């Protein structure tokens, strides 16, 4: 079985700092991270590999610095990683991105001589764009079934059994076969940290680069040219309302907080 994990490098927005003098975002030194749900995807791939045996392959489209994210994925334990990097890929929306990723998966399957015995894992959504579109679009491009919002995943004999979160509290259990694409949620598992020896190993492996010619992409379908949507404006939402800092002992602060939450009918 081949397991492809789609990985996106995103800014670690949880660590965004605001300059107290200018009240603007401090962009300097903000580390890039692997999109958190993609880490759940990597963890699932590694668990399946440990349980059933598989070859695990990470794929990312991005600038050369995205190599760092793939290196971390190797350190976590993926067997191989490919970085799709090319000026022709730049400015892609979700459609062009999915097209590019699926061409790479097709090409790799061809190289491996593999037809159907594969699984594609995506994080449900990325914390920067938040579209949740790439997974489903990759499945469409590959012409394989897709199951989104996956919170539990099992293989029994040749069947894939998946729990899909549905309308908040409901769960749908779906049975299918490979090949399939799943997009996973953070509840699925707890991603492992790379071990120190895993990090050492990852630098003895290669993050392989692929350009548009390697995956036989036609320029009109990729990058900005192949994109159907255009970003009109990006802005940081304005903070609504005032904040209050409570002072005093922990007990005093907690009771004051509870009082205020009650007043505002939040509890």
């Amino acid at each position, binding site marked *: 079985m081949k397991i492809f994990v789609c990985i996106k490098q995103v800014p670690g927005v949880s660590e965004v700092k605001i300059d*107290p003098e200018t009240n603007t975002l401090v962009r300097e030194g903000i*580390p890039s991270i692997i999109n958190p749900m993609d880490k759940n995807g990597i963890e699932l791939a590694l668990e399946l590999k440990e349980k059933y045996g598989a070859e695990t392959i990470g794929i990312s489209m991005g600038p050369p610095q995205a190599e*760092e994210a793939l*290196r*971390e994925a190797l*350190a976590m334990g993926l067997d191989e990683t490919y970085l799709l990097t090319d000026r022709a890929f730049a400015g892609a929306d979700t459609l062009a991105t999915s097209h590019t990723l699926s061409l790479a998966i097709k090409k790799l399957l061809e190289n491996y001589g593999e037809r159907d015995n594969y699984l594609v894992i995506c994080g449900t959504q990325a914390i920067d764009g938040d579209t949740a579109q790439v997974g489903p679009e990759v499945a469409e491009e590959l012409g394989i079934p897709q199951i989104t919002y996956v919170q539990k995943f099992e293989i029994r004999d040749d069947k894939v059994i998946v729990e899909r979160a549905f309308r908040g509290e409901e769960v749908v259990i779906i049975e299918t076969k490979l090949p399939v694409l799943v997009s996973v949620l953070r509840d699925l598992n707890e991603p492992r*940290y*790379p*071990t*120190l*020896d895993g*990090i*050492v190993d*990852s*630098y003895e492996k290669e993050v392989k680069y692929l350009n548009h010619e390697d995956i036989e992409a036609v320029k009109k379908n990729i990058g900005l040219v192949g994109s159907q949507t255009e970003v009109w404006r990006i802005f940081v939402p304005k903070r609504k309302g005032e904040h209050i800092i409570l002072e005093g002992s*922990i007990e005093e602060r907690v009771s004051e907080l509870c009082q205020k939450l009650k007043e505002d009918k939040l509890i």
Partner: protein
Amino acid sequence: MEFSLTKRQKMIRKITREFSEEYIAPVAEESDQTSQLDPKVFEIMKKMKYFGTCIPKEYGGAGLQDDTISFCIVTEEIGRIDASWSITTGVHCSVCAYPIYIYGTDDQKDRFLVDLATGEKLGAFALTEANAGSDAGGVQLTAVKDGDEYILNGSKIFATNGGIAETLLVVTTTGQKGRRKELTIFIVDTNTPGYSVGVREDKLGVRASNTSELVFQDVRVPEENILGKVGQGFRLGMQILDYGRILMAAQCVGLGQACLEASIKYANERVQFGQKIGRFQGIQWKIADMATAVESSRLLTYKAAYKCDIGEDYGHAGAMAKLVASESAMQAAHDAVQIHGGYGLMKAYDVERYFRDAKMAEIYEGTSEIQRYVIANHLLRKGF
């Protein structure tokens, strides 16, 4: 001259920082108050190879034996969150596992190193006694040859990891060489009959780290367990401590960094006299001095590690690093508490713990005075 870290070193920092913040930080205060290391953290650190950082992969370690800068980064990042943990892993790796890797026989490596590198067993280095510490030559614990065994009698005090260690490097005296004692180091399995743990010390700082008295009553150790040769104990002991000092310096860099970060955060939040206290020059100067001292310590520490990695003599460089880093951490902790005012005295604030942990660092693994002695001794003998 190249000051930037390699990509691999940067990743080691990033991952160790994320791990320490996620797993060690939430339990650091509790560990300090209960004087216990968290067993869950222990398990994850074993898996992540923090007990085998400087040991080759073939012995179950992380494979960073030639990258002491990475070992420093690991120790610094753990020390930034909790010095009790960084001293536990730092001592285990640097003055127990690593010496067995460097000076041990193949048989000793097979018997002891894998369990140490994987964290299955914890290691300690036992030198200090009631009448020997700074004066290492004053060791009174005797090892007397009996057939192909040695019988150890005496006791050690203040052994870091001592009470929970299962593999010890014990500095003993095996006789007299002219006016000096002949010292020999033994690898001792703590399951050997006659060995027992005495008092566990209740300390000012690094409280979760185990510091214990070790008692040897007719402990029979096979001669295959001698590290190096009979009589090499003083020289090997000094070399082992030279290496360990670099890591203790790294731990102090992390501790100083923690003081700096806490101070910056507080100075940007706390309002007095209608403005954030960070706008007062009195606070600014403290923060500027703290940052300068921490950065100086970091550079000296990495320099000592670098000298070690390229095979240069690093003894006095390590002593300089340990001296500057521990005294800088103490000053940083002093100022961090001062900046926090009354809150800085409270256990609810981390700086209170940093202050106690920093004072320890000026004393353990060679006091500041001994570091100055090592540095001066080197300069007066060999020149600069």
